[in-house]
């Protein structure tokens, strides 16, 4: 009986491997086909800071990666769990204020404030959103957009933590290289970790909740628990970005709840391709520098994001990355005649 089961399992594995579009590595061409795109991405990102001409563009790159992280987090929650969160700024804001308070009031060093802000902020955001988790679709989206609008008002009204002025944070990241490679490391880890996660069995449960939450409930799984875990992952990434920005600026204030942190990641996701995870990163790598070049229309930048969003939704709803991936997979089948 046991050997029979083993034999079946072996049989199935062969077919399983084929159905998952993973094939036996049979030669350097196949290996290259799999490895080259990933290697180009990793090496490209690692080398990019070295070839940047000036300090100014290096700073732009830092913010590009921050928005890339936020966009990946948005994509994960929206496409793989089905919770469209329009209030990404809540996460950056909470992370920023936790790191800012810990550093300027209690004098904790950076190596402590950033992890505490990431995990603690994730926890606080998850608890704030917990009552909204039974909501689906547009209802959840509407509720989330309210939080980042409300929290700064509360801070102003109570005049705590520097009120409208914000507070100076003495702990700053030493130089631009540390900033760049810290954020770059986190970007790469988050990207590959999320990609792995959504294809694990755990990720399939999350995707099940998006597709058919009733069936997941009927399978004896507490969906609120899983949604809360997914929100924690997303908000922890957002809180890390907030804490990072605070220690980059040396200042913490209400602008860390700004609409940019909610809207730009969404625009980047739509531009890059929903559900690809790497697409949103590339989307923000295009959008953020573009906005810098168009500095002249600085005050119109939200309008600009909206136009990009609209144009892509209307003309190319699949996004750049989905298109590129499709072309790349077609490329495999080109043969020499």
């Amino acid at each position, binding site marked *: 009986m046991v050997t029979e*089961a083993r034999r*079946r*399992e072996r049989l*199935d*594995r062969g*077919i*399983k491997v084929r*159905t998952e579009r993973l094939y036996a590595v049979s030669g350097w061409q196949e290996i290259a086909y799999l490895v080259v795109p990933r290697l180009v991405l990793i090496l490209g990102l690692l080398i990019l800071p070295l070839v940047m001409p000036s300090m100014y563009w290096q700073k732009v790159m830092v913010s590009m990666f921050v928005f890339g992280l936020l966009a990946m987090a948005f994509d994960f929650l929206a496409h793989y769990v089905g919770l469209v969160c329009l209030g990404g700024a809540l996460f950056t804001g909470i992370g920023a204020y936790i790191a800012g308070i810990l550093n300027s009031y209690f004098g904790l060093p950076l190596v402590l404030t950033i992890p505490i802000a990431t995990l603690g902020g994730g926890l606080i955001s998850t608890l704030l959103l917990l009552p909204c988790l039974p909501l689906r679709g547009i209802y959840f989206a509407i509720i989330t957009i309210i939080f980042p609008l409300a929290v700064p008002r509360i801070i102003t009204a109570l005049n705590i933590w520097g009120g409208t002025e914000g507070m100076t944070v003495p702990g700053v990241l030493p130089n631009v290289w540390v900033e760049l490679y810290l954020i770059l490391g986190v970007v790469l880890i988050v990207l590959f970790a999320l990609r792995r996660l959504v294809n694990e*069995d*755990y990720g*399939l*449960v999350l*995707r*099940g909740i998006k*597709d*058919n939450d*009733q*069936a*997941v*409930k*009927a*399978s*004896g*799984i*507490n*969906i609120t628990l899983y949604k809360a875990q997914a929100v924690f992952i997303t908000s922890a990434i957002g809180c890390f970005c907030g804490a990072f920005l605070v220690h980059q600026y040396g200042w913490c204030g209400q602008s860390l709840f700004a609409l940019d942190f909610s809207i730009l990641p969404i625009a980047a996701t739509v531009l890059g391709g929903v559900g690809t995870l790497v697409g949103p990163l590339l989307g923000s790598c295009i959008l953020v520098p573009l906005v810098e070049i168009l500095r002249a229309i600085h005050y119109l930048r939200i309008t600009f994001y909206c136009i990009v969003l609209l144009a892509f939704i209307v003309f190319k709803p699949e996004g750049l990355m989905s298109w590129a991936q499709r072309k790349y997979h077609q490329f495999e089948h080109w043969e020499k005649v």
Partner: protein
Amino acid sequence: MSRNEEVVLQIRDVSKSFGGVKAVDNVSFDLVEGEILGLIGPNGSGKTTLINIVTGFVKPDSGKVFFKGKELTKLPPHKIADLGVTRTFQVMRPYHSLPAFKNLIVPLYSPRVKRSSGGKLGDRDAVGIDLLEEVGFERDAYVPYKIASTLPLGYLKRLELSRCLALRPEVIICDEVLSGLSMAEIASMIPVMERLQMNGMTIIMIEHRIRELLRLANRMIVMNFGEKIAEGIPEEVMANKRVREAYLGVEAE
């Protein structure tokens, strides 16, 4: 019929209204271990609402449901499924982009399965494929590996059934697993249900296919306008005057 006559599910005076409509009106019955109970009635007679109440998706206005002495009415759906009372859905929405066997990862990931297997489940994919074979997915024809959106209705119904089976439940409530299937598909589905019963599962079947149900069911309950109008062994129930009235002109078989 079961030898020891142990009641697993007790439904007591359950009522539910939606606005002015009494969907379920004061319904009570028992489910005996090991039986197949047929639940029939014309469209809109409250069968699905009753199932929704038993599995926790709808809270009743009054009345209680007990599973082996434990009250289900206050529990959320996932807790009820965790106790071993599972259901299929009338409208199937599988995870379209995934192969059929990957659809079973979700139930196999549930706390109930983790508990019962003691953490030694092995490869969830392999377990899923075995489960699909159990409900009639032909492994040799690679049907379990097909993407769920390409499967015909008959297989989707089986997939839905296997999603319940994955939990190794004690009670399965099947909401119209035979309707919409071709005669050949129904013919191959009946032995599946019989095998489930032989393996000790207690089953409630909601059906419109009376003829097939008469073959399978040990006992039948008929509902009309939210009320239970008849209960008993199939032949007696079908001979009942009120049942004939309710179905006259509706069921033309």
